[in-house]
């Protein structure tokens, strides 16, 4: 085990897979000579050259389509959308081509590509650079959606996504690229499906994914130390498909659920998780499940307003206390 950063984990997965298979390529804006906005492709251009590490023009929809077309012939492109906000422009190709081609062709054609992008609010990047869009991707049939909360997942999910024959969208977070964590020294493939119990508990389950797992861990600590409430933290690293069984199991144990996401509430990951809880284990519940989300506003630039718009560990604690009638 070595402790490396999230971006290094992603870079390592690229490097290993590109070294193994000459049909693995990567493409995106500023990923080659410049090494990638978040360094996720650092050094690859020097090593694999311009035919396999492609600096694209700022033509998100068309370069994404180009990568998808190449994948029809068995090329395995890792397509970086610099920021999830720019993925809006590529959604036509992602949804209409990659996600549907297998189905439309009766299984004749597949699009084994990986889409990666950084999402979430970082620091004061404003309304057009702070979107959370995982809710949009996870609603599309034919697309897998995963979202790593730590370097090990960032490495292992990308490795598996490249090997998988389905198109996979990987949702990273702008604030997490420099996060450190242990990654196995030997090759490791993280499951694309499932969920992980990050901290075990008995009184309430805190569901989260990506950055909200970290808020939940902090909240669980506070709940334990200050209120004697034992919270279980579940990491939903696969958003599509959701781990219905994992969700059921945890709720059947704790009988209470708080679902936490950085997204705005409506039509979201959290509302979907609550629907799954209702469908899978309604009669196990001791209280109505609740969610903790960002305010429904375009992300404000001002620092104070931005902070107020995004949830944090304290908000999670408050939601749990309310659930227990302690607030």
């Amino acid at each position, binding site marked *: 085990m070595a402790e490396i950063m999230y971006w290094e984990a992603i870079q390592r997965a690229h490097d290993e897979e590109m070294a193994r298979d000459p049909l693995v390529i990567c493409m995106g*804006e*500023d990923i080659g*000579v*410049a090494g990638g906005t978040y360094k996720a492709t650092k050094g690859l251009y020097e090593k694999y050259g311009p035919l396999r590490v492609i*600096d*694209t*023009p*700022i*033509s*998100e*929809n*068309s370069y994404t389509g180009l990568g998808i077309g190449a994948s029809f012939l068995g090329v395995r492109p890792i397509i970086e959308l610099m920021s999830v*906000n*720019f993925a*809006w*422009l590529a959604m036509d190709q992602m949804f209409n081509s990659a996600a549907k081609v297998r189905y439309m062709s009766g299984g004749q054609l597949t699009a084994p590509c990986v889409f990666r992008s950084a999402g979430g609010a970082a*620091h*004061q*990047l*404003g*309304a*057009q*650079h702070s979107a959370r869009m995982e809710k949009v991707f996870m609603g599309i049939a034919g697309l897998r959606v995963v979202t790593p909360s730590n370097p090990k997942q960032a490495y292992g999910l990308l490795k598996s996504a490249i090997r998988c024959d389905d198109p996979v969208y990987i949702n990273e977070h702008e604030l997490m690229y420099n996060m450190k964590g242990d990654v196995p020294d030997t090759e490791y493939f993280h499951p694309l499906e499932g969920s992980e119990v990050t901290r075990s508990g008995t009184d309430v389950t805190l569901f989260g994914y990506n950055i909200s797992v970290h808020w939940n861990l902090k909240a669980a600590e506070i709940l334990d130390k200050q209120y004697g409430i034992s919270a279980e933290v579940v990491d939903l690293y696969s958003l599509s498909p959701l781990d219905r069984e994992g969700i059921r199991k945890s709720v059947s144990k704790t009988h209470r659920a708080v679902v936490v996401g950085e997204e705005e509430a409506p039509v979201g990951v959290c509302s979907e998780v609550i629907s799954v809880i209702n469908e899978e284990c309604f009669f196990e519940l001791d209280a109505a499940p609740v969610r903790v989300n960002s*305010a*429904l*506003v*375009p992300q*404000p*630039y*001002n*620092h*104070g*307003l931005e902070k*107020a*718009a995004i949830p944090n560990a304290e908000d999670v604690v408050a939601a749990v206390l309310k659930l227990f009638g302690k607030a």
Partner: protein
Amino acid sequence: MKLEDKKRVLREMVVHRRFEERCYQAYIERKIGGFLHLYPGQEACCNGVMEAARPGYDYVITGYRDHVHAIKCGADPKEVMAELYGKETGSSKGRGGSMHIFDVSKRFMGGYALVGGPFPLAAGIAKGIQMKGGDEIAICFLGDAANNQGTFHETMNMAALYKLPVLFVCENNLYGIGTAIERSTAVVHQHKRVCGYDMEAAETDGQDIEKVYEAAKVAVNHVRSGKGPYFLELLTYRYRGHSMSDSRGYRSREEEEMWKQRDPIYILRDRLIAEKAMTMADYEAMEKEVDAYIENEVIKFAEESPEPKVEELEKYVLADRESQLPWITGKAA
């Protein structure tokens, strides 16, 4: 250009340069957050074009490198700086930030962060002008790399097809972030790209404001006289990195030096000195005066302005509810 205009514009360009350099400092001091894209090196582009147009009357739209365009249209530098500080007195009430300066009262229709996004918006503004029958024009300032977006071609086609009163100004600074134009784009000279739409186009030196002005006059006259859109390419260079986290490893210091020899402010200054319209001492005094203005008025205003109230987080998301009640409730009288 007339002599008094040249003298005035020289001072304006110095204000623009100093404003941007002061932003750099404020960013280091963490007074400004987010992404910050600065304009030094390209001043003659915005200034030359807008001298040929009618700032505050013609509509202007641009990308994220937008402070100077806003100021040139008439936005108060104090309010622009306050916006960068995230203050309630800022041009977007602290909600927008550097990439989203707006001053609609001055017909500065905003800065947008998505590359290529403003193309169709500019054409739409021109459509609005066409429908209302005014003699304003729409001016869209964007970079070179933006032309690789689908919106570029889709918009050029519609603008030509509908003969819209819109001037597209391409500030070709040879890079899109760290990718040199010849590595992203099949043709370096961007004006060639609109010939497929039979659109009038020209290219000129973007460092010499008088050349920009002359070319822009032709372009603006064409558009204002109802002959349809025009595409003007200006060859220029940005001195600083793309935004603040850019170490400029993709280009050489020699190349940067070469461009600095053709500094838009110094070209105009030296010409005015040669014409005996001013002395070096006059220029230096003016620079000092500008610095004092930026420090004592612009920065002071931004520093002393209040933050937005957290209780007003949701203000501006939708129209004032009261004003919309007839439709919200379906009880329109």
